[in-house]
């Protein structure tokens, strides 16, 4: 039996009726499916049909969380099928993962004992091509069956034409009442739907005459009778369409728009909703993860302190400019990773102010979240979510507490976090607590900035009538993570996100060993090993290796017990503490004399399956998963 999963979107009108908006195939599962799908119903469906095999045809887009992460720990659909449906009922589960760009699917011979579920797009399939890709096909069919099953539309076409808007305009008060949409999906979510507040029939007629050949007008349903967290929402029904176009509903959910409602919409002179107000009225303002994958360092309001103590806005900054920069700690401060931390007292005593040169600058038209900070000392800073600053934390060690400096993205900051600032008049380090954080959606220019040698520049406060403090800012995209050291030389190469380049590394010793510099201040071991990460060199001519650093490590959930969730890294995967089961500890002692007793910190291999880190997971000959922590760029450690 062949089946396809569809997601059909509805809006509930103010009269209580449901209006179908569109149907979709190739959908992402952006909920924790194990909490949403009725496992009993699905199991009964499978058992009633005597399936002995379930095949799932999908791409990575179908099983991961799409758009802004909505649900912590959302279980990939494939894992749900495998763990909740197939394993308990002794049904074989076969995954067919396609390239994300795949337009057709591989042939899998159908038979009565197989349930072949397709999530991935198939351009040769009827529902996909005629009704999901082509909104006009869907709307026309719905309209011909029941005009009130869809919002009122104007489609100017001989085959699919609809004109149900009539002469009376929808009244949504001071909010948009009509939308211009594109016929074929996917569309550019940053532009479509274009929302208008039409006041007269003349406005409507003008809009009709301005339509592109593949655009149509649809009334915009604005219904505040039901709200979630003061936000309007739409319904999505996720269904398994099988056999002769029968449906098995998997679940229905409500998904809000991004921003809460307000009294009025914000319109431009053409009565079009402003770009920054669109997140209030539509659920998608980005194109999948593409638009938010670019990590930016600064926005047009960022003011950099130059090496001569003048200032310059980021938009005026040019390559070859010399900016004031900071070396936080000895000679390794220009190599900093997510895991880096340094002793606060050591940094206060030993930081250096230097000059760095702008070697790259890329400009982007940014639309998205901006984080606005107000500190207790009155300073204000704002930046894009991935702007990276330094904060002070306290971490218990044994019977005392160590005060460390760590990096943080703006989006990770919280009220009462302590930020590191530089008083530009005295060139001293100061700290201040975050008093408030406000979030906004803005449309502006933003930048990737690469400075060398140091990666830490100074962004001036954006405070009215005050220019005293600058915040330490680390450029995100040019953070360097891989170093290969040439023993005996004084030039090493390191790899940045932008590529591998050679750079003179000031180790200052002829016979160099290199070790990973990451984790808490206080190296060497246990953070010493050759792997991806940030390295430092020492002058002792050797490298000290930790027993359990990176490399391939047993990470199968089945080999662990007392698993406790610790935290989630910015990269998206979870970190746990755990112990290994006794049988495994004994076996490893016998086989390799490795000691896996005690408490450990790392990932669960199963979490990484069907994610972008899947290539870090290895299936061992004994059937258990292990994880290549080197490739994952993460430390597997005993705690």
């Amino acid at each position, binding site marked *: 039996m062949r089946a396809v999963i569809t997601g*059909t979107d509805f809006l509930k009108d103010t009269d209580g009726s*449901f209006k*179908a908006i569109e*149907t979709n195939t190739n959908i992402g599962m*952006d*909920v924790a499916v194990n909490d949403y799908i009725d496992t009993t119903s699905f199991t009964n469906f499978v058992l009633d049909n005597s399936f002995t095999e379930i095949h799932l045809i999908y791409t990575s887009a179908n099983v991961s969380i799409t*758009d*802004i992460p*909505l*649900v912590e720990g959302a279980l990939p659909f494939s894992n749900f099928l495998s763990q909740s449906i197939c394993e308990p009922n002794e049904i074989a589960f076969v995954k067919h993962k396609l390239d994300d760009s795949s337009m057709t699917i591989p042939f899998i011979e159908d038979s009565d004992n197989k349930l072949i579920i397709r999530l991935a797009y198939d351009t040769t399939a*009827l*529902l996909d091509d005629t*009704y999901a890709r082509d909104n006009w096909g*869907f709307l026309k*069919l*719905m309209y011909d*069956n*029941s005009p009130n*099953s869809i919002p009122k539309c104007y489609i100017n076409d001989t085959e699919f034409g609809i004109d149900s808007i009539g002469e009376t305009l929808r009244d949504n008060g001071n909010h948009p009442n009509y939308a211009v949409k594109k016929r074929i999906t996917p569309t550019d979510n940053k532009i479509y739907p274009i929302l208008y507040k039409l006041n007269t029939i003349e406005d409507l007629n003008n809009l009709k005459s301005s339509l592109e050949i593949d655009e149509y007008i649809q009334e915009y349903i604005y219904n505040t009778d039901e709200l*979630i*967290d003061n*936000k309007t*929402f739409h*319904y999505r*029904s996720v*269904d398994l*369409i099988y056999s*002769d*176009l*029968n*449906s098995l*509903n998997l*679940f*229905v*959910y*409500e*998904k*809000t*728009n*991004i*921003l*809460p409602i*307000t009294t*009025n919409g*914000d319109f431009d002179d053409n009565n079009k909703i402003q770009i*920054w107000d669109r*997140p209030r009225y539509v*659920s998608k303002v980005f194109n999948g993860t593409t638009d938010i994958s670019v990590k930016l360092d600064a926005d047009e309001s960022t003011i950099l302190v130059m090496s001569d103590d003048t200032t310059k806005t980021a938009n005026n900054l040019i390559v070859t400019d010399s900016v004031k920069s900071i070396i936080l700690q000895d000679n390794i401060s220009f190599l900093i990773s997510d895991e880096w931390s340094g002793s606060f007292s050591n940094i206060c005593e030993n930081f250096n102010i230097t000059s760095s040169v702008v070697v790259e600058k890329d400009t982007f038209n940014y639309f998205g*979240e*901006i984080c*606005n900070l107000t500190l207790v000392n009155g300073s204000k800073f704002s930046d894009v979510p991935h702007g990276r600053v330094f904060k002070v934390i306290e971490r218990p060690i044994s019977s005392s507490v160590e005060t460390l400096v760590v990096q943080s993205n703006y989006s990770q900051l919280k009220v009462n976090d302590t930020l590191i600032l530089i008083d530009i008049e005295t060139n001293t380090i100061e700290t201040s607590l975050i008093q*408030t*954080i*406000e*979030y*906004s*959606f*803005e*449309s*502006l220019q933003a930048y990737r900035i690469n400075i060398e040698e140091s990666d830490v520049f100074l962004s001036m406060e954006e405070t009215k009538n005050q220019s005293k403090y600058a915040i330490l800012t680390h450029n995100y995209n040019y953070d360097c993570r891989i170093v290969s050291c040439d023993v005996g030389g004084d030039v090493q190469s390191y790899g940045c996100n932008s590529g591998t380049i050679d750079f003179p590394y000031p180790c200052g010793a002829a016979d160099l060993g290199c070790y990973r510099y990451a984790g808490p201040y206080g190296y060497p071991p246990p953070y010493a090993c050759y792997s991806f990460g940030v390295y430092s060199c020492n002058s002792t001519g050797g490298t000290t290796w930790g027993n359990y650093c990176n490399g391939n490590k047993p990470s199968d959930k089945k080999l662990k017990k007392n698993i406790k969730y610790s935290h989630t890294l910015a990269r998206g995967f979870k970190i746990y503490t755990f112990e290994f089961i006794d049988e495994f500890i004994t076996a490893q002692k016998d086989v390799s004399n490795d000691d896996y007793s005690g408490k450990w910190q790392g990932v669960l291999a199963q979490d990484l399956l069907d994610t972008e880190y899947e290539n870090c997971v290895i299936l061992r000959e004994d059937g258990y998963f292990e994880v290549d922590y080197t490739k994952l760029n993460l430390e597997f450690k005993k705690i």
Partner: protein
Amino acid sequence: MATENNKGIKYPNKSDILQKIRKVTDNTKKTTIKSIIDSFLTMVKTKHT
């Protein structure tokens, strides 16, 4: 509303700018939606067979 150029309203909580998803448990709503989908599928079947 009048806002600064290119800027939207500032919100005090991160949750203010994040989307929420909620499972529909109301069977009346689910039945209504299913009936619309089923009639769509019937129409597809009629048109293409």
